[in-house]
């Protein structure tokens, strides 16, 4: 009985704090259809892709309507031009390098030009520097303080280069598969993942970031884990922060829903959504095995 009372009080305080969510249907008016640009290019070898789609009704959970038949070109500040083509009309516009050539070079600026129907769009960005990931280790941990199930928690170490603010996005893969839930969208300013939380320039990545490359279930023995750091620009960082905020904008303390920024500029007065980014990538891969395990702190 006493235990029951304890539990009742405990669950009451928890439910008070978290409330109740119900998925509902509601009527929504559709706005105009806009071009959406998902263009994230890298300095890695192999083909580079820009995906063009169209905005659609919020409750349309089928595949996004593709935008085919566009002319897509990327030019860098040295005047070198890269043509992206979509021969199979699936909205994926691809540039395939010849030999060992790669598209991205740190320090160069890039301009994207899209001609789609009667409209033209441009975007500009820059490829910034990125530090290496020095190590990737694992610790045996409970999934969360309430759980009895254990797993392996990854922690990676790296040093933010001193001077000039740096911005990154962190991505991670479990056994080759990108982990991409809404909580996995992590953007970094210097060594920190909190906007304007002060000067963390030149520091070891802060602990919440070092431990951000973990799925809810943590890892199992022999999982292969890859962590990537992608350099981004300051405006891309703000865009990703806003996007993450909006994807998780729930509960008592939600903010007014608003459009995330875009760097796609309509030359003919039309607006677009999406972002054009060119990143340098550094990564580290490790397997959850005895030699990569460290004692729990």
């Amino acid at each position, binding site marked *: 009985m006493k235990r029951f009372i*304890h*539990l009742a009080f405990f669950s009451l305080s928890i439910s008070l704090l978290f409330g109740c*969510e119900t998925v509902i249907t*509601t009527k929504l008016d559709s*706005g105009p259809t806009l071009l959406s640009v998902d263009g994230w290019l890298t300095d890695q070898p192999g083909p580079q892709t820009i995906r063009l789609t169209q905005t659609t009704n919020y409750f349309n959970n089928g595949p996004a309507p593709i935008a085919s038949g566009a002319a897509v070109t990327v030019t860098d500040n040295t005047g070198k031009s890269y043509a992206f083509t979509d021969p199979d009309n699936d909205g994926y516009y691809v540039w395939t390098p010849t030999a060992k050539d790669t598209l991205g070079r740190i320090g160069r600026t890039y301009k994207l030009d899209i001609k789609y129907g009667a409209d033209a769009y441009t975007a500009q960005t820059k490829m910034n520097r990125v530090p290496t990931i020095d190590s990737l280790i694992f610790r045996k941990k409970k999934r969360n303080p309430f759980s009895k199930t254990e797993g392996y928690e990854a922690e990676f170490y790296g040093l933010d280069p001193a001077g000039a603010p740096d911005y990154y996005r962190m991505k991670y893969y479990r056994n080759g598969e990108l982990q991409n839930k809404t909580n996995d969208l992590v953007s970094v300013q210097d060594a920190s993942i909190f906007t304007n939380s002060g000067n963390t320039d030149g520091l070891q990545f802060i602990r919440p970031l070092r431990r951000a490359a973990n799925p809810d279930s943590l890892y199992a023995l022999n999982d292969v884990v890859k962590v990537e750091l992608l350099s981004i620009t300051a405006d891309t960082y703000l865009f990703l922060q806003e996007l993450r905020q909006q994807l998780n904008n729930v509960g*008592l303390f939600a903010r007014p829903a*608003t459009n995330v*920024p875009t760097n796609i500029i309509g030359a003919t007065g039309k607006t677009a*959504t999406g972002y054009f980014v060119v990143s340098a990538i550094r990564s580290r891969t490790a397997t959850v095995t005895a030699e990569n395990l460290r004692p729990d*702190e």
Partner: protein
Amino acid sequence: MKPFFRYGLLFLASLCTAFAQDKVTVSGYIKDAANAEGLIGVSAYVKETGTGAVTNNYGFYAVTLPKGTYTLVVSYVGYKKQTRTIDLTADARLDLEMTQEGRELQEVVVSTKREDDNVKNIEMSVNKIDIKTLQRIPALLGEVDVIRSIQLLPGVSTVGEGATGFNVRGGSIDQNLVLLDEAPVYNSSHLFGFFSVFNPDAVKDVKLIKGGIPAMYGGRISSILDVRMKEGNAKKPEVTGGIGVIFSRLAYERPLFKGKGSFIVAGRRSYADVLAQPLLKGDLKGSKFYFYDLTAKVNYHINDKNTVFLSGYLGRDVFGADFGFNWGNETASLRWNHVFNNKLFLNTTGYYSKYDYSLNTDLKQKTPNDYFRTDSRIIDYSLKPDFTLFLGKSTVTFGGQSIVHDFQPGTATAASAGDVRVFGLSHKYGVENALYVGNEQQVTTRLQLQYGLRYSLYSYVGSGEAYTFDQTTPVGLRRAVTSTTQYSSGQAIQTYGNLEPRLAAKYELSPSSSLKLSYNRLAQYIHLISNTTASTPLDVWTLSTNNVKPQIADQVAGGYFLNFGPTATEYEFSVESYYKKLQNQIDYIDGAQLVLNRYLEGDLLTGKGRAYGAEFYLKKNRGVVNGWVSYTLAKTERQVEGINGGNWYPSRFDRRHSLTVVALIDPKSSVAGQPGRWNFSATFTLASGTPATFPSGKFEYQGFADGYFQGRNNYRIPVYDRLDVAATLKGKQRVGKRKEDNWVFSIYNVYARKNPFSVYFRPDPDHPLVTQAVRYSVFATLIPSVTYNFKF
């Protein structure tokens, strides 16, 4: 400041003698005979002349009359009427004590004030709730709550249940001046907004002023919530307390200095953590989650001319395991009541108010090389003399206030792998001064006027940095700093002055009906920085600066007031309508960074607001079933360049319709002359859904789907409705025993409606391309509770 008062006093003293030649004044304190608490708002009425006075916040009254013999009728709802014959040949002091009427009648009192107050008082847009009514209203988890209860009044709304604060006539939550014994309370909530910080055992009187705000008040532009603490029983020691689901409460009060003073000390603490402690193991061991408050007050009646009061409040919310977070308020106020003579009364208040929070990621210091700590606090110091001059047909109030604001917006220390960085923001200082004079005048027997003028002068002062921002940046984007100027200590960076006229008029159409009109302008120099639906304890206040202009509100209101029933006091009815214009309302750019941002001002937008509406209020004062019905029709909008294309949009707390019904049921006892042991109460709330921003489309990016939006607050969430009930069982009263006790059983949200707090659109967290609409309810079920209260 000082010379002003000296000359002012001289002037007033000469004024008094001029008036006093053929007239005499009777004055004094009116107190409760049971505990010697000063009674606020008691009517002292002179039968022969039809004139009279009402006691002020300290129970002091004064009536000026030509020499002669008069009948003075002193009345107060719930107290025995007193009639005194007075033979006035010279100024006289008459202190009175009033006895409460029989228990049975007292239980049905809805509010303590004179019976015809609704019609006769010049105040409009004012609601008072006494503590007995508060205790009767069904409460969430049985915890009697001042802030939740005032949300049942016309013109008061909230963005949603569980949200901190309240919205008055279209104003945001930071536009309410919440006073506890005249000291402002910056965060009136425990547990993010579920409970308010006022301990019902220590509260005597609650008054909400929504319009026609007298000149003595200033500093916030929407409303004044004036909470007065009990003085403590000056006749006999008393212990009150209770055990509820959330809090345990205990209060002790007793006489001091041989009946010349008294004190009360009251404390509350939540105790869920104590009960849960045995269940917390491993990492959770030693987890803290509790909140408490402590209220204390002492007064000393030095002599007939001088009384001093010292009151204090201390409250804190503490949460933490490895990660710790705590916040709280502290206030202290010292007041001195001085009676110069029969006509001139002075209350001087000095107060201190503090709000602070701190956050630490490594509370147990397990990881000394990696942590983040931050804290923030605001402190106010103030001195406030308020004079009241009773001149027979008019009552003059005048005085001033000086406030020094010392804000520390945030300090922070971060450590990563042993490297420690200290950063944060420097202190910001502001000085607010105000002078005011007001007059309440009986022009004819039917027409009464109250007019006044307040001049507020604010300076943003050093030491500190002032910034200028790039004005060429398109509105809606972050403005970059273009220059920084250093200011030394006390040096004015920016000064704003505002004349704030106040006006109110009452015209009695008949003894039981009146028309009232009011206009007021108010200015506000400190602002709560919050862009979330419900304000969080982490929200910081900011001062007006060279970039942040003071908020200004102009409000006109008019109303019709009627009392009716067999003796014209059984029912009160009022209808009021208002129009309010707001200037320099703060909003935020998309992606605004509100904490630890040195250049916060570059992320702020300013705009205008307007609010208008009509409030209907019908109250039944007596009977087996009594209570009130209130209906509000309202609209509140904002226009901010950079938001919603610069067009007007409804503010987040705009509710077109709100209806509340409060029913108090006091069944007659089977034994004649004995009060019934059971009584019941119910409240019903029905309100339009608040506005929300719904998407007009979506797009995909990097495997995530996000909404595309056109406009702000373009849809409404579903209607809100809720029924709460409570029943009180009084313990058997034993002959000769002082002990009283009762059990309160209540059910919140009786029909378990999943009332929407908000509707939001988001991808499924596990499938980020699948988008959905989610209705979020804070309390999705019925919540029963039992509370035991005692007093001896």
